[in-house]
């Protein structure tokens, strides 16, 4: 009987997830998915009985979490897409309790954020906001969803120290979220570097260390060399690109001016 087998596999899956044996999890997952196919419950239809739906959702959620721990964003995205029809079911058909919907969605938002896909992030957020407004529950109470939202806001404002604070382990809502911290810190470091180039004429190495959230001065020198900053007498000097930019600017603009004027002439000819 496929149902019993599936329940068995699920129990094993939970155990393997706790013992961090992901190799085993993946093999178990494919068995679970096969069982789901036998039950015809991998994609919810009107006739799928409720226990099957619950089992299917559980399997897919475990799959999503496993792929996040294995740092496999593509497979996570796939699981997330597969879960969508389940989350869209009304509460009468599939009760919301026991579901990790907000955790998975929060993780997906974070994934979009770390990819820099802001359009996708806001598209999803708009949908969540609409659903939340309809059920009367605000998104504000949902710690899993609020976390990426707070991060996005801080990133857009430029308050990078807040992003840094959020990625500390005690602020992260669950351990899976912590896996993104590394990517995020890399992102903000790059952002800070490009901001510093424009904002400071020069910077002492010691200050740069705290600005860039690096551990040692050696790391700063290493980082500076990577992006081509000049380190001299304990200070970082940023390469001046302005002169270069300005001369190019004139060339570009004269081209466009000529182009525009010719365009006007052509248009005038058609009108007169």
């Amino acid at each position: 009987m496929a149902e019993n087998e599936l329940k068995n596999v699920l129990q094993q899956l939970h155990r393997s997830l706790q013992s961090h044996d992901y190799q085993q999890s993946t093999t178990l997952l494919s068995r679970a998915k096969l069982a789901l196919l036998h039950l015809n419950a991998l994609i919810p239809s009107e006739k799928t009985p409720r226990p099957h739906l619950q089992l299917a959702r559980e399997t897919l959620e475990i799959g999503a979490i496993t792929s996040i721990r294995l740092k496999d964003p593509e497979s996570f995205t796939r699981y997330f897409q597969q879960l969508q029809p389940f989350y869209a079911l009304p509460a009468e058909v599939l009760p919301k309790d026991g579901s990790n919907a907000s955790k998975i969605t929060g993780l997906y938002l974070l994934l979009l954020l770390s990819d820099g896909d802001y359009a996708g992030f806001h598209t999803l957020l708009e949908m969540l906001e609409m659903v939340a407004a309809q059920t009367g529950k605000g998104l504000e109470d949902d710690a899993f969803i609020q976390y990426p939202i707070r991060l996005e806001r801080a990133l857009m404002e430029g308050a990078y120290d807040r992003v840094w604070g959020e990625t500390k382990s005690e602020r992260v809502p669950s351990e899976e979220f912590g896996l993104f911290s590394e990517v995020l810190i890399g992102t903000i470091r790059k952002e800070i570097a490009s901001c510093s180039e424009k904002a400071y004429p020069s910077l002492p190495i010691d200050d740069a260390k705290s600005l860039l959230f690096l551990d040692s001065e050696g790391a700063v020198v290493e980082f500076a060399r990577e992006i081509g900053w000049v380190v001299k007498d304990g200070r970082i000097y940023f390469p001046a690109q302005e002169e270069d930019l300005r001369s190019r600017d004139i060339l570009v603009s004269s081209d466009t001016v000529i182009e525009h004027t010719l365009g006007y002439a052509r248009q005038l000819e058609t009108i007169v």
Partner: protein
Amino acid sequence: MSDTMEGVVTEAEQPTPENVEQKTVADIRSNFTLLERAVAQFDTRFTLRALRSISSLRKRLDERVLCSVIVLTYSPSNATARVLIEAINMDGKAIQGVVAQYKEEIDQNKGNKQDPLPEVDVYIAILIQVYLYDQKEYEEGAEFSTQLVDKVRELNRRTMDTLAAKAYFYFSLFHEELDPKPPSKQSPLVSIRGRLLAALRSAVLRKDQETQASVTTLLLRNYLATADITQADLLVAQTQFPATAPNNQVARYLYYLGRIRAIQLSYTEAHENLTSATRKSPTSTVAAGFYQASMKLLIVVELLMGDIPDRATFSQPRLERALEPYFKLVQAVRVGDLQGFLKIVQTYASTFHRDGTYTLILRLRQNVIKTGIRMLSLSYSRISLRDICVRLGLESEESAEYIVAKAIRDGVIEAALDHENGFMQTKQAGDIYATREPGEAFHERIQACLSLHDECVKAMRYPMNQHRLELKNAQEARERERELAKEIQDGDIDEDDAAGDFDGL
């Protein structure tokens, strides 16, 4: 949002119901002539005129009027008539009463065996849709509309395109009102997507641009109602909006497109679309809802782009009251008052939710901070980070430093930071006329004027075969000239005579 598609209907008590009824029936029947002419001459203008009169007929529609029209138009045994009468939901006695009233005319019509055109059927059906919608009979309306659109699709007549577009419009409107209402995923709105997409496909294949435009906007509205922005975006990417679509459809399409782009953070594109949408929206009072909705969105998008909307926008009589929360919002953003901004968002949260602008407005926070920094950099040549932090109500000095650094990189302000001493030093503002800015602004305006000119030329209508008439005229003129020349040559029209007139000079 639901009021954006429909004008507000007010029920007014008419002084003499008998007369009004007679007149309405006559009006509707005179529209049939227009429809017949449209079919005969293959000119949609007549159909459009018949459709346009719906808005004035609408207030006077009731079941008796509709029943009279049907009884007078069809022979008693007609199957279509039966379906239409059933849809009005009148009891048998009332129908008998109407039949008795028009007995003479019906007898006269008996000799005339010809069945009315399908266009007339559909026109009456649309009137019934309007009537059912105004009576809030949404269930029945939805069912009737489903039958209607199926029939229209089967008929496949090019003279029916404008009517079909209207039928689809009400079809979707009825489903929108059914429970559970969107944005619930169980809304009946989701289930009609298949039908609408099929309609879109056939419309494209049949080069039926009216229906194509109408169904595209309906689908976009449908997707946006349940916040399926990705699908809406894909639809826009995969389809081509017909260039010859009526103005109202174009305005709607641009509005939805602007909405999608705003959510996807492409503010420039969103701004372009929304500006055109507001300009294309009707100037009379009929579509005030649409104008308000698109203006609201446009204001938020302008704010997100870092622009401050014109003060005059808010004092237009049909916008003034609706835009009040937005006006306060703009004021807060303009002075960079972060606390005031958060307070306004909190106070009007429900309004913004209803307008569907809430998430967009939440994104404004960073703009408020940027404006605040810009104000500070304009007023002080040197200011400490501590003061910036206090003035803008930020959490820490470190935050302030990063935020200012980002503002400098994004080109919001011209300044430099001094980390050791902890202050921001403003650079001397350069001469704006030495940059490309004025040239770009100039180019933008010229571009707008030129495209306006092009659109005007495209919008002009040339009567069919007119050039032949002109050719004929020219030919005649030439002939006359030749004759004249000949006569002059012959000396018949004498120069003396011609010159004689000028003697007095």
